[in-house]
């Protein structure tokens, strides 16, 4: 399997703005490291939701082994995952950050579950992990992502945080093309890549109710409604969404020229795949 991640170098990407941004993140984590109460509040009110959402996309098994690339000065993600019973290996290429992170892990009493190593992300080996998190600000992201997806083992998941909105201005956008054997999906700012052959457990759903109008996708799996297969909504079939009614109305799809209307609830349970993932 292969994942080609091409980095779209918009002018200014990783330039002054990118630098500023990285610095801002750095000092924010610095602040967190210094004020435990603030960090805890931030973790509870914002970060935990993000990680929980990613965790559900990754469909982690119990006590999973997780690698986090770019763990940072204050390893929020690692801590949150560790509190959920997972074993986390965090790496960062900044020696200072590693020092600080270790201190915090110890202070939180989680050093049996979280290890922090000083390592570069470009030559990691993801084989032994159930899931790999790649931070937002890792550099060079395209190399790291490619390396990860090459070493990701079957059934494991890569969760890559992708710049969106303002972040994209700073870091440039990311275009990923997934090849044979991978399933890929993107949520606003997260890229999910599932390693392994196409018949492994599908990744967190990218469902029919969210397919843009007039885009063609391939059905991965119906939802067990016995009318879907006879109507052509079955694995491997190309479908096109022709219209979507407003406010939770039906989705109209076209399969080989046959038109079928699906209620949103039904469409939400039809999983699809497309070759292009992120823009």
């Amino acid at each position, binding site marked *: 399997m292969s994942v080609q991640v091409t980095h779209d170098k918009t002018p200014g990407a990783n330039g002054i703005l990118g630098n500023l941004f990285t610095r801002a993140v750095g000092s924010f984590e610095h602040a967190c490291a210094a004020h435990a109460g603030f960090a805890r509040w931030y973790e509870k009110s914002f970060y935990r939701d993000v990680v929980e959402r990613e965790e559900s996309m990754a469909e982690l098994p119990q006590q999973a082994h997780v690698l986090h690339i770019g763990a940072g000065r204050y390893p929020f993600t690692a801590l949150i995952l560790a509190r959920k019973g997972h074993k986390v290996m965090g790496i960062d290429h900044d020696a200072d950050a590693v020092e600080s992170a270790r201190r915090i892990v110890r202070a939180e009493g989680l050093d049996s579950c979280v290890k922090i190593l000083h390592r570069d992300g470009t030559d990691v080996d993801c084989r032994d992990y159930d899931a790999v998190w790649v931070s937002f600000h890792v550099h060079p992201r395209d190399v790291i992502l490619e390396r990860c997806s090459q070493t990701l083992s079957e059934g494991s998941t890569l969760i890559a945080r992708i710049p969106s909105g303002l972040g994209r201005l700073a870091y440039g956008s990311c275009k990923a093309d997934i090849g044979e054997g991978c399933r890929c999906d993107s949520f606003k700012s997260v890229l999910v890549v599932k390693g392994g052959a196409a018949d492994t457990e599908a990744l967190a759903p990218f469902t029919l109710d969210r397919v843009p109008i007039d885009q063609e996708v391939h059905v991965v799996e119906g939802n067990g409604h016995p009318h879907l*297969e006879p109507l*052509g909504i079955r694995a491997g079939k190309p479908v096109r969404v022709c219209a979507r009614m407003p406010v939770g109305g*039906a989705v109209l799809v076209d399969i080989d020229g046959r038109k*079928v*209307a699906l209620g949103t609830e039904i469409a939400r349970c039809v999983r699809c795949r497309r070759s292009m993932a992120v823009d």
Partner: protein
Amino acid sequence: MTDRPSSRVLLVGPPNVGKSVLFNRLTGLSAGVSNYPGTTVEFAEGQMTLEHGGSATVIDAPGTYSLQSKNEAERVTTRLLDSSPDLVLGVLDALRPETGLYLALDAMNRGHPVILVVNRIDLARERGYAIDVKALSDAVGVPVLATSGASGLGIDDVRRNINHAVSGERPRPARMDIPNWETTECLAGVLRRETGDGRHRGTTSERLEDLLIRPWPGFPLALVAVAISLGIVVGVGMGLRQYILLPLIRDTLLPIVASGVQSVVSPGVLREIMVGEYGFLTKGIEWPLTLVLPYVVSFYFVLSFLEDSGYLPRLAALIDGMMARLGLSGAGIMPLLLGYGCGIPAIMATRTLETRRERLTVASMICLAVPCIAQTGAFIALLAEASIFVLLGVFAISIGALIMAGMVLGKILRGTKPGLVMEIPELLLPRVSVMLTKVWARAKHYLMDGVVPVMLGVAFAALVHETGAIDVVGRYVQPLVTGWLGLPERAAVPLLLGIFRRELTVLPLLDMDLTALQLFTGAVVGLFYVPCIAMLSVLAKEFRASIALIILGTTTAMAFLMGGLLTRIISLFMM
């Protein structure tokens, strides 16, 4: 050979492939046909004569997408299959053969002797496909026939094959493996090839199809369609009444009847009951034939246009989001619309809905606040002359009550929320002859089943009136009818009669010289008041007797409650 019980030939196929059309061709009957999935919800049997005398029983079954039935209509079909028919006609749609093919292969796998019928080949040819039945027949090892039910092409061939199959050497059921979609698609490819010289996509009708179903301009167009439909129902109905039926019935037929009776029956109570002011041979004939029949005709004309064009599933898709708020799916709109014609087929049509909860909700909504066309005809007669606003007001109340009922039932009934999975058929131009046949069938049905009960009802009313029994009855109902509803005592009679025919709750109010407010109250009570006895028995059969009773009780209570409340509220404003 003729004393053998006649062979049973079952038509099985996905919805909307033309099974009922084929059934009608084979048996000469007229089962309901229309261009949306789920027209047939109950099986129908007919006889087909065989070559050497004797006959075979042909059975039209509801369409089904698979043999794991998802709804009540599909269960009818699987049950029929389980009763091991002598021959299964597996009907496929030439435009999209794989669905029906899979089903037929599944039936073969279960050991049924099958003949495949590829219907609607005219449509497939028009779209640029060539159909090769020989190739498919060689591949699956059973006869494959091509037909066009619409034009009758290939029907003789079907007859011949049925004949062959049921007389003498019965075809060995060709045992098949459990079908899978890959092989089915391959076989469909064997059957159907693209020739490339068909009508290309992007034609006018194709573009219209797109426009009708996109939110814009689909929604505004739907409103326009509903408005035009209403306009035609009311306009054409009034025209028919004014220019055809009134001159024919009231001015020509009734005087003859009256003078005939007068020459035989001496003046007295009996004559009054027969041809007096409210006699059953005067009003009893005039009301149903000039007040209701015209709207039956105009309504079913519009409904068959909507059914045959294929617009209804589009409406269902458009409205699904709104119906979801009521815990229903867009598919519920079909039975509701049918209910504006007659409640009985409407309640039957709920069989295509997936969950029992949805069926029950829609059926209750129909019973509570969907007036059948006979009642609507009566409303128009009663209210349109007083003021068109009163008429619109009653319909606004009907719609409001439907929404309320949906919301309340959504709260109290348990069960999973339904989801819409609806195939959107091709738009077809309805054929006038087919529409006229349908209208005629409904009109005939009304003449046979509707007129006599109304005459009897009017006779009963006249009897009660002429004999003075009304005074006795009136005393008992006085507090409710006069006190609470503000109607004259005589209005108790229509309420009694309403259980037999819904229009009878309204029609007798016509000649009571009521004020606009009383008319409105009477109409509201009539709207909510009990479903007719025939509907109740269908309810009991489709659900349970207790449910019919609950609906009977609730609608009665609602009728009096709403009638009384609205009278009071409106009279507050009028003072």
